C-alpha cells in the first residue's frame, strides 16, 4: 500500500502554504475548473442538472445497497465475455494478483493509464520489484512518475508542477533540451511513450465505472492513452475499487453527463472507452487476455458503516477539491495519502485508520461548498463532523484520539459552563492573568503557556472583554442600551 504520511498533516500544510508556485497553481484550479463547470451546467440548465444529480445518486444508493448482487452479475458477465475476474481483500493481495499474471505471462514492459486505485496500492513499485518495467502514460502521471512524486489532484495529478520544473525534469531524465513550450513537452512525452505502448506486453487501466449487466469496464480520458493501453498490448488488466459497479448500460448515460462536466467542464471527454472482455475471434486486433481485479482494501468498512457509506458514491471528479478553501490553500500532498481534498479527508481515514489520519477530518471549515458541487450530492460536511465526533468520543481505542489532558480540559470546560459562579470567577482570573500579554484587543503570541501559544501561533486570540455578557446582564442591561446608542 502507498506510504501513509497523514500524521504530518500540520507541518506539511504549513510548508505548502509557503510554496509560492504551488499557490499560483492552486489559484488556477480554483478558478479554471470551477468556472468551466458552472458554464457547462448553465448550458443544460440548473433544473436538468439537479435531475441528473438525483438520478445518479439514486443509482449509486441502489448499486451499493446491492453490491454483492451486482458484483456477482459483473463477475458472470465478464467471464461469459471471455475475461477473468479476481477479488482482492487488500493492497498486498491485489499487487500479488497482478504480479502473478505478469510473471506467468512473461511480461517485461507494462504501460498504465491513470488509476487512483493503483496509487493506493503502490502497484508500480510492486511490479518493478517483480522485474516489470512500468510506464505511466497519462501526461501528468508520467511527469510525477519521472519526478518520483505522487498525484496532488484527482484529475490533474501534476498540477503542483510548473512548466519550468517539467522542462528541467525532462531535460534531466530524458536528455531533451530545455524549453518553455508546453506543446513541445507534450510532443516529447508522445514520442517516448509511443514506443513504450508498442513494445508493452501488458496494459493496465483503472475504471471509472463497471457495468454489471454487460460486464463492461468504462474509462474516460482525454489524451487517448487509455485507449492505447487497452488496445495495443496483448494483455489488459483493469484494476479498480469494488464500489465502481453500476447495474446497467442505461444507468451509465447520466454518469457520462455528470463526470466530465464536474471535472473539467467538458460536455464529454475526448474518449470514452468501454471494454468488454478480450478481443473476439473476428476482431482485427486488441488484447488476447482481459483480467479485472476488484479491490476491497478497506471499502467494506465504509460499506458497513451507515454514517460513512455514501463516501463510496464518489466518482472522483475532483469538483470538491476545486471549490474547497482548505485544498485551495494547501494543495493535495499535505493530506498525506492518495486521496486529497474534502472527500480524501473521509476516504483516507477510513482506509488507513482514523487515528492515523486524525487531522484530516479537521481540515475543513465545514462551509458546505463541497456538498453543493458534488455531482452525487455526497454530504461531505456531515461525514467530517461525524468523524470529528468519533475522534473525540469513540469508546474504541483505535478511534479516540483525545489525550488525557484534552479530555480533562473538556471536562473542566463543561463543568465551568454549567456553574455560573465558577465561570464568572474564572473570567475575572483570566482577565488578570492576560493583562501583561494583551495589546490591541488581542493576546500576544508570546504567552509563556504552551497550550495558549500553540493556539495563538497560527491565529489571533481575542482578549477577554473587560465585561462579560453575563456581567452586563446582571447590571440590568443599561450598559447594553448604552452600547446601542
Amino acid at each position, binding site marked *: 500500500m502507498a506510504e501513509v504520511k497523514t500524521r504530518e498533516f500540520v507541518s506539511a500544510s504549513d510548508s505548502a502554504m509557503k510554496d509560492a508556485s504551488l499557490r499560483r497553481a492552486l489559484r*488556477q484550479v480554483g478558478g479554471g475548473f470551477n468556472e468551466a463547470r458552472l458554464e457547462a451546467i448553465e448550458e443544460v440548465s440548473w433544473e436538468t442538472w439537479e435531475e441528473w444529480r438525483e438520478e445518479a445518486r439514486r443509482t449509486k444508493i*441502489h448499486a451499493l*445497497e*446491492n*453490491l*454483492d*448482487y451486482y*458484483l*456477482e452479475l459483473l463477475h458472470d*458477465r465478464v467471464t*461469459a465475455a471471455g475475461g*477473468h475476474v*479476481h*477479488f482482492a*481483500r487488500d493492497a498486498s*493481495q491485489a499487487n500479488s494478483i497482478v504480479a502473478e*499474471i505478469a510473471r*506467468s*505471462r512473461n511480461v517485461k514492459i507494462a504501460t498504465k493509464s491513470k488509476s487512483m486505485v493503483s496509487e493506493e496500492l503502490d502497484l508500480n513499485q510492486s511490479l518493478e520489484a517483480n522485474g516489470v518495467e512500468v510506464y505511466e*502514460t497519462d501526461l*501528468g502521471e508520467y*511527469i510525477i512518475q519521472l519526478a518520483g512524486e505522487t498525484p496532488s489532484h484527482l484529475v*490533474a495529478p501534476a498540477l503542483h508542477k510548473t*512548466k519550468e520544473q517539467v522542462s528541467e525534469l525532462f531535460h534531466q531524465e530524458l536528455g531533451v533540451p530545455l524549453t518553455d513550450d*508546453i506543446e513541445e*513537452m*507534450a510532443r516529447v512525452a*508522445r514520442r517516448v511513450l*509511443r514506443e513504450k*505502448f508498442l513494445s508493452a506486453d501488458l496494459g493496465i487501466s483503472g475504471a471509472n465505472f463497471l457495468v454489471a449487466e454487460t460486464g463492461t469496464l468504462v474509462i474516460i480520458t*482525454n*489524451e*487517448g492513452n487509455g*485507449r*492505447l493501453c*487497452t*488496445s*495495443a498490448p496483448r494483455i489488459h488488466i483493469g484494476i479498480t475499487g*469494488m464500489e465502481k459497479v453500476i*447495474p446497467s*448500460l*442505461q*444507468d451509465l*448515460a447520466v454518469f457520462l453527463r455528470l463526470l466530465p462536466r464536474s471535472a*473539467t467542464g467538458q*460536455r*464529454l471527454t*475526448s*474518449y470514452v472507452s*468501454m471494454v*468488454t*472482455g*478480450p478481443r473476439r475471434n*473476428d*476482431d*482485427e*486486433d486488441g488484447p488476447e*487476455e482481459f483480467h479485472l*481485479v476488484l479491490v476491497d482494501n478497506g471499502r467494506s468498512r465504509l*460499506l458497513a458503516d451507515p454514517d460513512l457509506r455514501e463516501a463510496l458514491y464518489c466518482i472522483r471528479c475532483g469538483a470538491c477539491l476545486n471549490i474547497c478553501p482548505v485544498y485551495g490553500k494547501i494543495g493535495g500532498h499535505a493530506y498525506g495519502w492518495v486521496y486529497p481534498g474534502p472527500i480524501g479527508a473521509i476516504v483516507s481515514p477510513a482506509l488507513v485508520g482514523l487515528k492515523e489520519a486524525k487531522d484530516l477530518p479537521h481540515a475543513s471549515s465545514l462551509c458546505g461548498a463541497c456538498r453543493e458541487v458534488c455531482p452525487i450530492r455526497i454530504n461531505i460536511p456531515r461525514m467530517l463532523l461525524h468523524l470529528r465526533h468519533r475522534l473525540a468520543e469513540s469508546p474504541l481505542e483505535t478511534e479516540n484520539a483525545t489525550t488525557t489532558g484534552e479530555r480533562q480540559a473538556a471536562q473542566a470546560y463543561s463543568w465551568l459552563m454549567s456553574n455560573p459562579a465558577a465561570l464568572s470567577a474564572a473570567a475575572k482570573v483570566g482577565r488578570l492573568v492576560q493583562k501583561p500579554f494583551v495589546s490591541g484587543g488581542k493576546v500576544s503570541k508570546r504567552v509563556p503557556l504552551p497550550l495558549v501559544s500553540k493556539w495563538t501561533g497560527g491565529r489571533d486570540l481575542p482578549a477577554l472583554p473587560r465585561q462579560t455578557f453575563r456581567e452586563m446582564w446582571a447590571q440590568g442591561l443599561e450598559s447594553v442600551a448604552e452600547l446601542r446608542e
Partner: protein
Amino acid sequence: MVEKQNLTSLGVPKDDFLDHVRRSLGRTHPVVPPPLHLPLTENLADLEGRAAAARERLEETRGELADRFEGTARARNWNVFRTSSAEESIGYITQLAGRLGISRAARADQPVFGELGVDSALRNTGVELFVAAHDESTSGPRVRDRIIESGLGITGADYAVAETGSVVVVPRQGLSRLVSLVPPVHLAIVRPKDLVESIDDVFLFRRLEYLRNGGDMGSYLNFITGPSRTADIEMKLVVGVHGPREVHLVLLA
C-alpha cells in the same frame, strides 16, 4: 507449446469475497434487488419495440439531427465538412491528404467505403493507401506497422451522437482499433443513418444488439469526441498527446 497456466481466479475465492460484502451490508443471504430503472432481463420483444420507436423518431428528425450534430461536433473541435455530394466529399479527403503532405494513409474496411470510392481518388494523388482488411496476409503485426506509418486514418462511424458531437465505433471485421487512434490525423465519414440524438439512443441500440447476440457486447465501444487533448501542465490546453491532434468529419447530409 506449453499449456498456459490457468489464471481464472487468483486472490480471494469469489464466494468468500461476496459473503464478506454481504455481511458488511448486514445480510446473510443473497437477495435479488428490485429493478432500478429497467429490468436487467428485458425481453427481446420489448427492447425491439422501443428500438423501433426510437428509429422512427430519428427518421423523422434527421435534418434537425444533422444540424445539431454539426454544431456540437464543431464545438468539440472537429473540422466538419458537410455535403450530400459524394464527389465533394472525396475532393475534401484528397485535398486534406495534399495539405498534410502525407505519403501513406490507412482506412478501415467498413461498408461506407464501398459506397464512396475514396480509394482510387486517394491513390491517384499518389498516396499509398492501406486497407486494414481482415485476411490472413494482413492481420497481426503488419496491420499495426502499416497503421503506425500512416499520416491519416480514415474510418466510418457506427453512430454519430448529436447530443455530444461524438463518433462511436464498435468492433467489426476490418476495423482495427488503431486506425482512429494512432495516426496524427483522423477523418470519420458519417452517413445520415448513423445519426442518433443522445447517448441513451446508443445504449438502447447496443443493448438490443447485446441481447440479439446472445449476451455479447462485442469487445469494445468507443466514443470519440474531438482531438486528443491534455491540460496537465499548468492547465494549458494542448491537442494531440497520444491520439490524433487533428480530426475531421465528412457529414454526408
